[in-house]
C-alpha cells in the first residue's frame, strides 16, 4: 500500500504503475442480452470493474404525478453490492449512489427519443459487483448498450470514461491507486460520439485551464475507444444469434 507521504512517480518513461500508457484504457469487454427477464441488458468488465445492467420499459410511469405528458422519464438506479468494495459496503443506498444515479440518468436522456414516450418511464438498473475506480463510467457505458438491446429508439450511444490527473500527469481511465494520488483529480466524462456532445461531466480537485484542455481531449479520445467496444458488443449479438442454434 502506498503511504501518502511517499513520493510516487505515477508516470515513468511513459508507463504508468500498471504498465499502461497515459492514453490507454484498461481492458474493456462487454456482452449484451445477458438477462432473459429484462427488456435489454448488458454485462461489462472494465479492468477490475464488473457491472450488470438491466433495462425495463418503456412502461407507464407510476405514481401518476411523476408523469410528464411531453416526454418519458429515465430512471437510473446505480447500486453497489456489499462485497464490491474493499470494506464491506452498507447494503442501504447512500448519498453517493443517489447522486451517481441522477447524473447518469441525465447523461443518457438526450440520446433517447423520449418525446415518443409521453407519460412513460424507462428504468435502468446498474449493479456493481466489483469495483476499482471508474464504476460510474462503466455503468453509463453498459447502460447505453442495454438500452439499444431493449430496442429503445436512440439518436446515438453514450460512452463514458474517467480522465484526470495523478502525480502531475494527465492520464486516461484512472485506477484506484491513481485516484488515491495526493494531487488526484478525477473527471468522469460521457459523450455522444457522433456529435461529440458532452452529456456528463464532473470533477473534483484543482486543475489549470491548460491541464483541462489536455484532459478533455484525452477524455474524448478515450470515449471513442469505449465506443468501439460498444459497437463490437452490439454487433456480436447478431453473431451470437447466428451461432446460437
Amino acid at each position, binding site marked *: 500500500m502506498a503511504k501518502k507521504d511517499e513520493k510516487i512517480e505515477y508516470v515513468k518513461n511513459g508507463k504508468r504503475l500498471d504498465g499502461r500508457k497515459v492514453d490507454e484504457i484498461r481492458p474493456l469487454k462487454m456482452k449484451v442480452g445477458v438477462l432473459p*427477464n429484462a427488456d435489454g441488458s448488458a454485462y461489462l468488465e472494465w479492468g477490475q470493474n464488473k457491472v450488470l445492467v*438491466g433495462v425495463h420499459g418503456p412502461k407507464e410511469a407510476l405514481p401518476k404525478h411523476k408523469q410528464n405528458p411531453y416526454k418519458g422519464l429515465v430512471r437510473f438506479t446505480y447500486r453497489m453490492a*456489499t462485497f464490491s*468494495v*474493499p470494506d*464491506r459496503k452498507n447494503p442501504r443506498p447512500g448519498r453517493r449512489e443517489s447522486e451517481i444515479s441522477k447524473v447518469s440518468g441525465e447523461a443518457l436522456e438526450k440520446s433517447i427519443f423520449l418525446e415518443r414516450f409521453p407519460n412513460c418511464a424507462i428504468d435502468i*438498473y446498474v*449493479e456493481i*459487483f466489483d469495483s*476499482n475506480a471508474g464504476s460510474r463510467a462503466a455503468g453509463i457505458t453498459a447502460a447505453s448498450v442495454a438500452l439499444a438491446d431493449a430496442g429503445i429508439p436512440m439518436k446515438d450511444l453514450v460512452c463514458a470514461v474517467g480522465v484526470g490527473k495523478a502525480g502531475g500527469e494527465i492520464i486516461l481511465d484512472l485506477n484506484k491507486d491513481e485516484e488515491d494520488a495526493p494531487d488526484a483529480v478525477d473527471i468522469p466524462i460521457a459523450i455522444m460520439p457522433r456529435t461529440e456532445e458532452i452529456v456528463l461531466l464532473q470533477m473534483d480537485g484543482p486543475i489549470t485551464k491548460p491541464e483541462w484542455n489536455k484532459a478533455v481531449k484525452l477524455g474524448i479520445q478515450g470515449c471513442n475507444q469505449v465506443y468501439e467496444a460498444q459497437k463490437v458488443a452490439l454487433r456480436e449479438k447478431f453473431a451470437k444469434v447466428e451461432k446460437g442454434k
Partner: protein
Amino acid sequence: MEKMIWDIEANKVTSLIKEGKRVDGRKLDERRKVTVLKNISDNADGSAKVTLGKTEVMAGVKMVLGTPYPDNPDKGTISVGVELLPLASPQFEVGPPRENAIEIARVVDRGIREGKAIDFKSLCVREGELVWIAFIDFYVTNYDGNAFDAGSIAALAALNETKIPKIEDDKVVKHEYSGKLKLAKQPLLTTVSKIAGNLVLDPVLIEEKAQDARFSCAVSDDKTMCAFQKGFGGSFKVSEIDECIDLSFKSAKELRKLV
C-alpha cells in the same frame, strides 16, 4: 398488478403436471442444470455466480472484524443478506428487502448456521473481544423461480472460496490473507413445489405461480437435516414431506460435487 397472461401460463403448467409433464420437459423430480462460476469479484473475500436454469445469483462474502455476543464470547457468526434486484424481474422493486427476500435470506442462513457449515469457534480471534463475522450477501440477477436453492448453492460456493484476511493491530490488511475459511459441513437447500397434488422439484417461475404449497429442506450430509421451511397457502401430508426429504438428500449429494 398481476397480469392475466400469468394465469393463462399457470393453467398451462397445471394441466401439464396433471399428465406428469412439465413446461420445460423435465421430469417432476428433475433439477435444472446448475453452473457455478467462482471468483466473480476481487474485492470480495469469496464469491461465486450460480445459475439454476435461467435463475441467476451472484454471491459474495466479506469477512469483517467485530465484537462477539456477550453470551458467546468465543464465537464468530454469519449474516446472510438477499436482494431481489429489480433487473431480475419486472415484478421486483427498488428499495429495502421485502418479505420474500427476508424469508429467503433467513432460510439460507438457517441452513448454513444449523448445518454447522462453519465452526463458529474457529472465527474467534480473541475471546470476548474480537471475532470474525462472515457477511454473505447474494443478489438475484435473473429470476426464474427457486431463489432459495440458487441462493443456497451460491452462498456455499462463495464460502468455499472464502479466504480469511490478515490482521495487523486488530485491523484487516486489505488484499492479504492468512488462510482459507474451513467448512466443516456442506449444507444445501432443496425446494419442492406442490402443484395439482404433485410434488415438483426445483420450480420455475410459472410453476411458482401455479403452486399450492412449497417446501424447502436443508441437509448437511447424507443423514442430517438442518432446516425446514414450508411456504404458501396449501398443505402437505406427512408422506409428502418424507418424499421431499428423500429428494433433498439425493439432490444435495449431486450438488455437493459442484460447489
